[in-house]
């Protein structure tokens, strides 16, 4: 497509950022889906929003303040119960290279 909003290269870059391994077929189909969606989203550019403040939240302002008290005791067994790999009370992953 001439007015590609998102190239195959960008699809790969975004997939890397999102830690998603995509097959070639997925790269193609996701690329074309995203293109169609982004072309439709171009609609937003019909609106002049240069003087409009963004809305990030619609609730009340002022985050509640929690008292500084310890309410949780140690529960390592419960916290590791769903872990796919562990060693003792550690979660375990393949070796990290720094």
């Amino acid at each position, binding site marked *: 497509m001439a007015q590609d909003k998102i190239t195959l290269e960008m699809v790969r870059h975004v997939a890397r950022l999102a830690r998603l391994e995509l097959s070639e077929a997925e790269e193609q189909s996701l690329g074309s889906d995203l293109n169609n969606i982004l072309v439709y989203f171009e609609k937003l550019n019909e609106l002049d*929003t240069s003087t409009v403040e963004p809305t990030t939240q619609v609730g009340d302002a002022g985050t509640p303040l929690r008292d500084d008290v310890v309410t949780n005791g140690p529960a390592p067994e419960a916290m590791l*119960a769903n872990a796919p790999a562990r060693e003792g009370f550690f979660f375990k992953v393949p070796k990290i290279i720094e």
Partner: protein
Amino acid sequence: MADDLSKLTITQTRSLLRSGKISAVELTRACLDRIAKVEAQIHAFITVTADEALRQAAAADKRLSSGHAPPLCGIPIGIKDVYCTAGVRTTCASKILANFVPPYDATSVARLRAQGAVFVGKANMDEFAMGSSTENSAFGPTMNPHDLGRVAGGSSGGSAAAVAAHECLASLGTDTGGSIREPASFCGVIGIKPTYSRVSRYGVIAYASSLDQVGPFARSVRDAATVLAAVAGVDPMDSTCSARPVPDYEAALTGDVKGLRIGIPKEFFVKGMEPDVESSIRAAIKQYESLGARAIDIALPHTEYAVGAYYLIATAEASANLARYDGIRFGPRAEASTLAELYSQTRAQGFGAEVKRRIMLGTFALSAGYYDAYYVKAQKVRTLIRRDFDQAFTKCDLILTPTVPSTAFRLGEKVNHPLQMYLSDIFTISVNLAGLPGLVVPCGYDSLNLPIGLQLIGTAFGEASILRAGDAYERSGAISLRDAVV
């Protein structure tokens, strides 16, 4: 008799339970029997918790006999599988959480539990609440109880279908862009999405945090009010949850709509809307006028931009919310010899196509060089949409619209056309962007016997007012709910 019990409303069962005419165990058994009978065709649940339900029902009977039972004591309820339930598998309809057992309850679940409600199971949904048909479930779709070849809507399709098919008396869903209201409309039940921050989101697996909201499905407006009252209100575990007091929703159901100014936005009567839908909505407006309300033409001029703004904001938030599914602390993990593989393959294998699509879209919208053009732009449009509603509410007390331009579509019809699917939320999405409450009440059936729902949009924290209007319509006897085909 057992089958009949499952058809009762909460209001009807309450006096039977209190007077001892029926027991919570009998009522629960009736629902479990119904589940056993219809689940093969409906597939409203991912997990049915029959044993636990009967234990809860027995405990509820004790409380009922003591004479001090809260309103939902002994009432069988379905819980969308997006809510964490302590000790009960919570999958979010995703392979990536296929075996996750949370050690905690969502606040809403805890509040229902505290009332003695009976949980019959975890309802099917679109994976991570991403979808409008419940076809994006890793456990297979839910079928519409009024036509098994059609979708139940989504993402809370299981919760809506379960109530429509009498598998439980009420259920909890969540609504981010229409995920309660669209399936309520498709399945012919009542559904309410409260004002953003009215109900705690703690323990509800996040899709889009600034839009997600908890709400009930029921078979009467009064039942929906009862369940909403049980879950609404401040929660110290959710920083975005409002501290405003919760009004007595049931007391608000006076049946009186005289002088009510009902706004009718012209933008919601679009080309391509199914004629049966339009005529049902028009008839409902007439019905309200006959009850003494006034219909007023209003404008919500930015409605057509809502879908674009919504999908950028929601997917951006989702792309971060779903980063925790990495196969390290929970969930299945892909075979991997390096950390990079662990991440990218666990996530590739664990997430379905629509979830991947939205993660990709959201990651893109936030990425360097595109943030302002997409994410910030969408948030500015969100401001314009809020202003539309502020303007409109200077002229009217609530707004009446169709919920969806169509009735339930066929399974598979839109699943490969993501943009088509997104556009089915066109009438519900702007309400989430503005953070307002929206109530869906069945208002008719099309020529194929498929339900049609009207949507009542209130001002922020105006749940009582839309519930009153919905209840008045329901009481006027304009339509009667039809049974499921199974």
